[in-house]
């Protein structure tokens, strides 16, 4: 082991003039060049600290005459930093570069071209191109592997020069080099060039793919990643080809480097689209599971990457991790991002057999410190209630016990999920409503409040004091957030429909509709107010049928991504896209999209749902990609908002096989319920349209509150007629 250095003292802001002097002094009487070394270290430290040292260019370059490798490397580092800024002086170093390019020592030759290629200035690149041609054929593999990357750098700086110089062809020759490290770097360089919008097309056929796979065993772990990654450029023509390659690379799943494992999984998932042998697919899926779980023993950062990927993979290939929910239980000291990612997977893997354990875990999490984590734990309990019917009773019990903790955010979160549970299991749990109502005062978050209001409105016929509660809730109507206002309007109308004979209720609904139509600025809310008013005016019975129409049952299917999108996203396994669950072209400027390429071997189902690449830039939306976490039930199409005439409804119709690999895996199809839901919605919509709409919108408003006194009507009318006056 080499000893500790003592260089910390150099981290001190220094003046250009001082350094220059010190360098000049060092030119004489500098035994073993220690003085020069010291000054250069000071300069490098200052570069690191962000002080502009470019003025010392000439002085520093003088040091290149020193025969110390350490000094040479520091000068080269200086050149990499300031070479571009000092384009007019760079010619001074060219002779040194050229000398090093032809040094007998391969390490020096490589160092020279590596450094030159970091300085993208014409004069340097021109000299480099002369040299590079030889270095790509150097007898030393270390020089060749460095030269391969130099081509990528050259191409990045000046694509035309690189192409005119025939470097791409030279690079291609390296694909069949005898040395695996050289092959891997050539693959990396070619891939980069091909990924440029103006780049060359780089595709692999079976022969090259096989040659590259043969090089896998001998290349470094990083090289393996470059090679494996490039296998996505190979499109299998027959099932057998895909199956053979899949089997050959699957041994890499045992590699210690998590990136090798994840990249192997990416290629396997890709190749499976072209396989036909179900036994083999099953076998590969089973083989992928344990290495994925093992990634959870890595550092927390890699765990996070693994977890986000697992979440995608199990949606497409559920057999990969069927019985492993326990390994995703959170450790108390897991970082929060690991915990949140685990939570989502626990929900996905929850089923009738393991739901007891999962539920016990989630209850445990609900008492932890991190508020966001606790909320998501409670929300997960709610989602599991909806997903696993057998556990619904137990889930409700645990939610009620959570409500009893009186911890404000726990209670609120519980109420949000209970609203959805009511919709999922109509007629089963309404008995707990009084318990919920006890917590009315604790609700200060819009979503929780809106949920509670929805519950009161929907079940106003079962809540004896619903009118009093609503009266309380509407007290600050105009100050409420918009979603609460929406909920209140609808709930008030429902209440009126249930209890149309009650005078206080009439007054209430009148008051709310009046506020909505007269004092609210939000046009959507105002429109809704008018619409309800008219509905009630035209025909209260029909209004009741519409407002209290039977709602479609809530299911969990829609929070699963559809298969085409999954197939596409899984082509990015292990990358940023797989962490954010977004295709890279949607959030990274200039990123290349991916799609499965068609071939006779492509699975017909995969072809059917294939999502072609969209060549659109990133949307001009917010710059920050939102962090991950469980999908909030309120935002997905699963749970409708508390409004009966919900317009945010239909999700794009999913193909029947959208569920978890559908027929391919022999799983039941889960898309039908979505279709039913859409169909039901369409009916409801057409139903609404079928009622006669009078030409004068205000014509029969006076019947809206049929048995009101004349005075009251007079109160109402002038305001409503204002626009006409």
């Amino acid at each position, binding site marked *: 082991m080499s000893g500790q250095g003592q260089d910390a003292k150099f981290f001190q802001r220094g003046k250009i003039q001082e350094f220059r002097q010190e360098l000049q002094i060092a030119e004489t009487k500098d035994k073993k060049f220690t003085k020069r070394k010291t000054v250069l270290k000071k300069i490098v430290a200052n570069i690191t600290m962000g002080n502009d040292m470019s003025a010392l260019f000439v002085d520093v370059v003088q040091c290149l005459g020193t025969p110390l490798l350490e000094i040479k490397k520091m000068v080269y580092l200086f050149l990499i930093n300031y070479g571009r800024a000092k384009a007019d002086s760079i010619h001074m170093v060219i002779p040194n570069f050229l000398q090093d390019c032809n040094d*007998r020592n391969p*390490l020096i030759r490589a160092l020279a071209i590596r450094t030159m290629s970091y300085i993208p200035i014409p004069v340097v690149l021109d000299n480099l191109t002369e040299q590079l041609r030889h270095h790509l054929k150097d007898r030393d593999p270390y020089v060749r592997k460095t030269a391969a990357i130099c081509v990528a750098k050259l191409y990045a700086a000046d694509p035309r020069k690189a192409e005119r110089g025939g470097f791409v062809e030279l690079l291609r020759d390296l694909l069949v080099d005898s040395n695996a490290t050289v092959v891997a770097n050539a693959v990396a360089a070619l891939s980069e060039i091909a990924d440029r919008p103006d780049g060359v097309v780089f595709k692999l056929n079976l022969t090259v793919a096989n040659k590259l796979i043969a090089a896998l065993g001998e290349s470094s772990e990083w090289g393996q990643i470059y090679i494996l990654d490039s296998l996505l450029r190979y499109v299998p023509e027959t099932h057998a080809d895909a199956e053979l390659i899949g089997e050959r690379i699957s041994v890499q799943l045992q590699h210690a480097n998590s990136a090798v494992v994840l990249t192997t999984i990416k290629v396997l998932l890709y190749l499976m689209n072209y396989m036909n042998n179900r036994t083999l697919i099953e076998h590969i899926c089973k083989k992928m599971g344990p*290495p994925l779980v093992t990634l959870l023993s890595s550092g927390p950062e890699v765990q996070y990457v693994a977890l986000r990927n697992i979440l995608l993979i199990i949606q497409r290939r559920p057999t990969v991790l069927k019985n492993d929910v326990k390994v995703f239980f959170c450790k108390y000291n897991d970082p929060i991002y690991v915990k949140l990612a685990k939570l989502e997977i626990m929900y996905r893997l929850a089923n009738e057999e393991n739901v007891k354990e999962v539920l016990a875990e989630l209850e445990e999490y609900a008492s932890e410190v991190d508020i966001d984590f606790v909320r998501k734990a409670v929300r997960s309990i709610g989602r599991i209630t909806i997903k696993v019917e057998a556990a619904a009773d137990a889930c409700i019990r645990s939610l009620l016990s959570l409500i009893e903790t009186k911890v404000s955010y726990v209670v609120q979160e519980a109420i949000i999920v209970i609203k959805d549970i009511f919709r999922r299991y109509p007629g089963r749990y309404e008995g707990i409503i009084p318990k919920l109502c006890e917590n009315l005062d604790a609700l200060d978050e819009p979503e929780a409040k809106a949920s509670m209001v929805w519950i009161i409105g929907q079940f106003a016929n079962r809540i004896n004091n619903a009118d009093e509660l609503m009266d309380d809730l509407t007290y600050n109507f105009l100050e409420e957030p918009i979603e609460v206002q929406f909920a209140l309007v609808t709930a008030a109308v429902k209440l009126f429909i249930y209890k149309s004979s009650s005078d206080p209720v009439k007054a209430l609904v009148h008051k709310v509709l009046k506020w909505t139509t007269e004092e609210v600025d939000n046009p959507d809310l105002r429109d809704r107010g008018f619409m309800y008013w008219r509905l009630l005016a035209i025909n209260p019975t029909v209004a009741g049928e519409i407002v209290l129409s039977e709602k479609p049952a809530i299911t969990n299917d829609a929070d699963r991504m559809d298969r085409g999108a999954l197939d596409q996203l899984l082509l990015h396994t292990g990358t940023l896209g797989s962490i954010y669950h977004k295709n890279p072209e949607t959030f990274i400027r200039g990123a*290349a999209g991916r799609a499965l*390429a068609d071939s006779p071997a492509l699975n017909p189902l995969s072809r059917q749902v294939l999502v072609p690449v969209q060549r659109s830039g990133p949307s001009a939306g917010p710059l920050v990609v939102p962090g991950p976490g469980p999908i909030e039930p309120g935002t997905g199409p699963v749970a409708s908002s508390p409004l009966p005439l919900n317009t945010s409804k239909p999700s794009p119709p999913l193909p029947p096989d959208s569920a978890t690999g559908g027929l391919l895996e022999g799983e039941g199809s889960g898309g039908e319920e979505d279709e039913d839901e859409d169909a039901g919605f369409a009916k409801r919509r057409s139903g609404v349209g079928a009622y006669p709409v009078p030409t004068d919108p205000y014509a029969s408003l006076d019947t809206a509150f049929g048995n009101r006194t004349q005075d009251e009507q007079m109160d109402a009318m002038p305001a409503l007629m204002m626009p006409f006056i």
Partner: protein
Amino acid sequence: MTLPDYCKYSRAQTTRPALRGPTPSTTMISAFFIFNQKGELLISRLYRPDVKRPIADVFRIQVISSSDVRSPIVTLGSTSFFHVRVNNVYVVAVTKNNANAALVFEFCYRVITICKSYFGKVDEECVKNNFVLIYELIDEINDFGYPQNSEIDTLKSYITTESVVSSQIVAEESSKITSQATGVTSWRRADVKYKKNEAFVDVVETVNLSMSAKGTVLRADVDGHIQMRAYLSGTPECKFGLNDKLVIDKSERGAIDAVELDDCRFHQCVRLNEFDSTRTISFIPPDGEFELMTYRSTSNVKLPLRVIPTINEIGTTQVTYLIVVKTNFGNKLSATNVVLRIPTPLNTTSVECKVQTGKAKYVPEENVVVWKIPRVQGGQELTFNATAQLTSTTTRQVWARPPIDVDFQVLMFTASGLIVRFLKVFEKGNYHSIKWVRYLTKASGTYQIRF
């Protein structure tokens, strides 16, 4: 020049076919930084022209100065920052594309491992003291954002703290280095010589336990690491055998004495093809210390210590503790460095502890009682009695009751039951070699008992 048909490529056309194959995006690290806690740069290396130095300020503002960072990856626009914290420094990689996230983190980990191996530790002082060497290293192990060979043994042969006069490096010597750095056994020098040929194998198992308040095991598994220190001359060919049975499909259960491993991963040097076909672990080891394999086992985990807590909240002013620790291994073995961290409520004012063995101390800043026991012999039973006094608080917040955490080490014991069956060394020189095996089972922050 005519192109051989094995590799077809051409100038990109303006109209691309609708169904174009997937274009894998490459992995490129645009910049690499090491920051101290104040956000000052200790190392700054830009690998690609698509980022400029001020990007470091963005990280400082968004991550280091931010009180609430909830992800190791922060993406702003098209720029992503990957960071790993180690001691008092941030190791950061920046990318501008859809980077292979696993690779980027593995690269950061590797830099940390290399620094540890070179300097013994990684912290601000050590980075500052060795910054020139670190610059050399990161220039070597990453080229244009592509991680390159980073085998420590090889790096140490040509990147050193000693001053090297360039003319002194004999070209031949360098050729050896380069062929090693790019070769089939890039992790090993060919000219290793020892008088005494020895190999030490350490089987180190970390037990993960999560036990519910009711005393049922929610999760118990073992992360095993097999560390090897090989001091063997020449190019030794090793074969390694365990009493394992790798279970791919849980239904294919086999011999009873075999330990079931859920999964194992191997060092770069192990021939994966051979393992796949014949289940033999064969390799040419790096010189010196390395991690030969890691494994995971979830069946029949023997828990070395059993902790039975009885903790009662008496009213709102007191909490009483009775904790019994029982050993679960033979009388000849012992657990050492046993440390229990027993949580106390946030409004604890004082804790009175009674223990027969070891020392127990209330640590108010961490809200725990730390009970340290230097050694517990197999068959022994320990008890801990304590009462915590609480202040009355105006807001009655429920105590989150974090789990009791137990750390320990048990020598010559494997929780999984794994045993090394053999380690055979074959070398041209046909020398005699001595092999040593050690077992250690430990827990540190992973052995948790809820109450």
